[in-house]
């Protein structure tokens, strides 16, 4: 297939971007950094209690896309977002939408584990305490323990809840960051390559955890690893140069991609 053929086909999204029970729905989204456009006309639904994987070569805009879903890009002054993004039908870029509240509802786990230089306990208790989610110390303790348990970290750290979190191993730190996020019970968790800085064993634990978390949360995960996307997600969207090329059931995307670019990517011809 020639290049011109591919160019012609990137302007529309193949597959099934829309679902019935959407938690987040994105329509005609463009993102600009100053004059440079990073994301082009993206349309996508993220269903309740699903794990959607966003894959694609590096620099394709998938991380930028993810950060726009809880307005983390607000911290970058030159970043501008256009289009409609709604959470449960509310436009999250509406002037009435409070970004702080939005971020409490749509949590985020980052590529590199970024625990605060405080104790393990304080890391998890940080959010609930600020948001006033616990009425007393016992309730707070309860939230911390539950969150650590949910993140599958409790047994490993129960003896050193009060030692500094930066002393944990990379995988433990990342699970702590997940525990920190679920401590405030968000509705959606965005994960930006959460296992890319980890070793295979830690990665496997994180992947199991993601599968577990699906029962209660909606999860969007950006990943470099196609195997990981195949293992953890129900749906997969393929990004290319700021556009979503193809969306579909994960099994279908990996076994029977419809778009040439998707096939090239998953067969390892580029990416």
């Amino acid at each position, binding site marked *: 297939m020639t290049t011109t053929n591919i160019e012609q086909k990137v302007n529309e999204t193949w597959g099934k971007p829309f679902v019935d029970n959407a938690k987040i729905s994105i329509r005609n989204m463009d993102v600009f950094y100053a004059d440079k456009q990073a994301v082009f006309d993206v349309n996508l639904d993220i269903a309740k209690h699903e794990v959607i994987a966003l894959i694609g070569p590096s620099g394709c805009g998938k991380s930028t896309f993810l950060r726009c879903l809880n307005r983390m890009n607000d911290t970058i002054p030159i970043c501008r977002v256009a289009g409609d993004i709604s959470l449960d039908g509310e436009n999250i870029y509406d002037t009435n939408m*409070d970004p702080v509240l939005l971020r409490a509802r749509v949590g985020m786990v980052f590529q590199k584990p970024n625990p605060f230089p405080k104790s393990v306990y304080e890391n998890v208790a940080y959010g609930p305490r600020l*948001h*006033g*989610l616990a009425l007393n110390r016992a309730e707070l303790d309860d939230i911390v323990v539950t969150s650590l348990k949910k993140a599958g970290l409790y047994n490993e750290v129960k003896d050193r809840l009060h030692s500094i979190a930066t002393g944990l191993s990379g995988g433990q730190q990342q699970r702590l960051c997940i525990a920190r996020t679920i401590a405030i019970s968000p509705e959606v968790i965005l994960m930006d390559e959460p296992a890319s800085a980890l070793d295979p064993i830690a990665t496997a634990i994180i992947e199991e955890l993601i599968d577990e978390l699906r029962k209660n949360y909606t999860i969007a995960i950006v990943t470099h690893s196609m195997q990981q996307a195949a293992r953890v997600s129900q749906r997969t969207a393929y990004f290319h140069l700021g556009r979503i090329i193809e969306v579909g059931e994960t099994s279908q995307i990996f076994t029977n991609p419809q778009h040439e670019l998707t096939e090239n990517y998953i067969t390892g011809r580029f990416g």
Partner: protein
Amino acid sequence: MNNTEKIKKSLNKRYRKEKRFRLLSLLAVLTGFACLFILLVDMIIKALPAFIQTEVKLDIHFDQEKLELAAHFEPEELQNANFRGLIKQSLQQRFPTVRKRSDKRALMRLISVDAEYQLRDKLQAEPQLLGETVPIWLLVDDDVDTYLKSDKQFGRVSQKQIAWITELEQQERFQKRFNYWFFQTGDSREPELAGILGAVMGSFYTLLVTLLLSFPIGVMAAVYLEEFAPRNRWIDLIEVNINNLAAVPSIVFGLLGLAVFINFFGVPRSAPLVGGMVLALMTLPTIIIASRSAIKAVSPSMREAALGLGASKVQVAFHHVVPLAMPGILTGTIIGLAQALGETAPLLMIGMVAFIVDIPQGVTDAATVLPVQIYLWADSPERAFVAKTAAAILVLLLFLVAMNGLAVWLRKKFERMF
């Protein structure tokens, strides 16, 4: 109540806190601005009177007899002639009712002690005035000057003096003119005669010594540390030393100068030479640190290119690296010299605090510098010195602004080159 509602409820209060915190931090910045603004405005207001000097017009009769000169006199005899008598005579004619000795003295105190030298100079320049009566503008004493400038709210003039001043004023015998004198003379006990030229020249010679010592030594040390030094403990020790010297209290450098330069090596006290030496030691860390970062910024490819053409390491350093790093080195040097120009404490320790009237002519003459002059005047009891001090401060700040401006300009100009 679910989590979202709980969070929503907490948010109002938290946003109020956010606003308060942000306001508070903005307020801190504005407080800093306000301090600077108040400081500058205070100095300017205090300094303004110093730029104006009052003169009084007296009709002086150049009476040969009163001058105690013989009919035929040598020009040198004019030096010691009784010009004070002329002023006395003129004042007596103006105020014939003043009889008591103490009153006469009080009357004389209206006029600056320098007035008689003004008359002498006048007569020396125009000998034909001898025997004539001419109106001449003479400097008034600083107390009268201050009284006239401060809306007559000043207590150091007596009631009688006030009456005379008022009379002179009604005859329109006072005039105010720009005080160019202030920029032309050295220090004096009399505020109306004190100027800053001596201190400016002292500062100039001191900084000259500082520059001549600290610039070559600083640059050479930086070149050695960046281009030649091996990485070992000795070099680490030198680096720790340089960083520490930059933070040693300046007064300690003064004690070093006193104990080593003056008492041990016998360098003359109070001179720009020893002052410059002490300030050079203080400026060195600034110059070394700035030069090192400028040298570090020169791209290694420049060195490799020169080495590849067969240049020796010394040639590379002095033909290529140092010229390229020069703007950065000069910027650091100017900033270091600006700090040295404002430095006072170490100079007090090495005797640059003496009262010196003459304008220094070289680096071994006794001298004082601008900041020390400010310190000396600030300590003087006469009210008129307050304005002089503030004026000297403005001059000092002006020099500092000029030097820092030059540094910024240099940096901007050569920024694009790299």
